[in-house]
């Protein structure tokens, strides 16, 4: 136990202490909330927060719906089938390794013509996406890229819950005279709602914390919280920037913590039926 504790204290505790301590102190090492009043009074820091929240929300929602459909289609095949192996491995790749590789794949496919293969091809047949305002290296482009890893993460998260939906329940419902629609309305949907909402929250937190894809796709100029933190650390325009970065960091931790509390509540509900 001791090596683990010491390890975590040094390599997680220490940087975390730096951030929290730095956020609540002034340069003279006095306790202050000044850093927070700065980030909450300036639109320079409001806009990234707003953008991050909006981006996380819509990519989580879209990813969750598409991911559930995909997972439902896959779960219907017997366990151990080739399709399942391929989908679960591919999901793992995108969810855990994704980031930079995914960004470059999307740049190659959807980059500005004549670079992007697909966008160039579309332009040749008369659909010029870039002329219509599309840009893969934009906030919207980042959202598209996020959907590419939100869907597989949803598949990983929701598959166990879908598997827990027992066929016997449908049989029981039908033998009691329920139609398919009634079974869905009174059994399947209520049972699936908590794990679905829980997974949506994980997806939200995942998108909110993500930065790798952004780094490769757009860089520090994107108006999102992680980029604002990077700009504050490595920009070095003003003296007090590090503490701004820390305050933004604490803000991020707070948002994710709130999401986690709701997730935990959804999980407790989910466990009533799905084991």
């Amino acid at each position, binding site marked *: 136990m001791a090596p683990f504790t010491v390890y975590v204290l040094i390599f997680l505790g*220490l940087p975390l202490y730096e951030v929290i301590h730095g956020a609540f102190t002034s340069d003279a090492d006095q306790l202050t909330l000044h850093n927070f009043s700065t980030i909450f009074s300036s639109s320079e820091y409001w806009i990234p927060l707003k953008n991050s929240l909006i981006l996380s929300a819509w990519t989580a929602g879209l990813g969750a719906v598409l991911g559930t459909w995909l997972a439902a289609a896959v779960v219907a095949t017997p366990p151990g089938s080739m399709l*399942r192996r391929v989908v679960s491995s591919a999901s793992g790749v995108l969810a855990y390794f994704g*980031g930079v590789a995914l960004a470059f794949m999307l740049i190659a496919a959807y980059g500005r013509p004549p670079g992007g293969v697909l966008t160039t091809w579309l332009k040749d047949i008369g659909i010029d996406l870039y002329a219509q305002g599309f840009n893969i290296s934009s906030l919207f482009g980042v959202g598209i890229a996020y959907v590419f890893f939100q869907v597989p993460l949803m598949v990983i998260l929701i598959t166990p819950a879908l598997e827990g939906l027992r066929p016997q329940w449908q049989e029981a419902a039908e033998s009691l005279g329920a139609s398919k629609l009634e079974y869905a309305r009174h059994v399947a949907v209520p049972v699936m709602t908590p794990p679905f909402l829980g997974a949506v929250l994980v997806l939200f937190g995942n998108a909110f914390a993500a*930065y790798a894809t952004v*780094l490769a796709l757009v860089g520090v100029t994107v108006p999102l919280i992680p980029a604002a933190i990077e700009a504050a650390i490595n920009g070095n325009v003003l003296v007090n920037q590090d503490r701004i970065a820390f305050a933004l*960091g604490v803000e991020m931790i707070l948002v994710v913590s709130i999401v986690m509390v709701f*997730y935990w509540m959804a999980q407790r509900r989910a466990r009533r039926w799905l084991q």
Partner: protein
Amino acid sequence: MSAIGGVGPDLVGGGSLLQEIEEAGTPGPPVTRRRRRPRAWRLVILVIAGLFYAIPFLAAVKYSLIQNDGSFGFANYSAIISNGDVRNALYTSLEISAISAFVVIALMLPTVVLVRLRLPKLTLMLEGVTILPLVVPPIVIAAGLAHLQGSAPEWLVKLWFNHPLTGLTPTYVVLAMPFTYRAIDTGVRAIDLRTLVDASRSLGASWAATLVRVILPNVETAVLGAVFLTIAICMGEVVLSSIMLYNGVLPVEMIQIGAQSPGISVAISILGLVFVFLLLFSLSFIAGRRRGSNSVRVI
């Protein structure tokens, strides 16, 4: 995350991925899946999903095959080895992955075993701690480390931050913890730990020997899963490395070289995606086989 609730198999990441893989091979109770359901919708969804991912992937493959002079060929792929910076970055990242994977197992396996065997009261705390890296975004950990990098005493900087290997590996282990803990915990839960340990100890084996020669082979699949996930995370991580200005690791090098020769970065991306896919795909077969042999074993 369900960790906080402290019950049962969770929905998060590695654990459930691995579990799913493991369950794939379980004979288990007969599940009567119905076959008479309409299959058209499934096919439609699978085709759409396939195209959604396959089309940009194939486009990227084509992109990576376009050489500087406009002709098709493998110049971007051969550049991975012939370009010194890229090659060195690849080696450094592979080194970091290998060491991280080793440290993860050396740290997590004994801890999980100890907690399950002797300190079950700490389970909740362990779950809470290992979930922390998901609550604290990588960019925030990076901010703290970057500050330490700038303010730490010189000897510490020399020891810790001067090289990406020492600067990044320890934190990558932390980043992988939420997934590796769950993978290993799932594995350890599945075996009869107490009996194995009692048998081994009563035959005179030391704790170290018990751990390496008795427990490790029994949780091989879980450990392999944890190792593969750690490799995937380490090979793809870019936030810490770029904030801390380590240019010599692969993802950072990809972004830098991508500014002038994006073809090379795309080629590396494709190889990376295929490599990690094959790791996880092979894991699904190993897991299935192991499970099959489990039923014959006495313990």
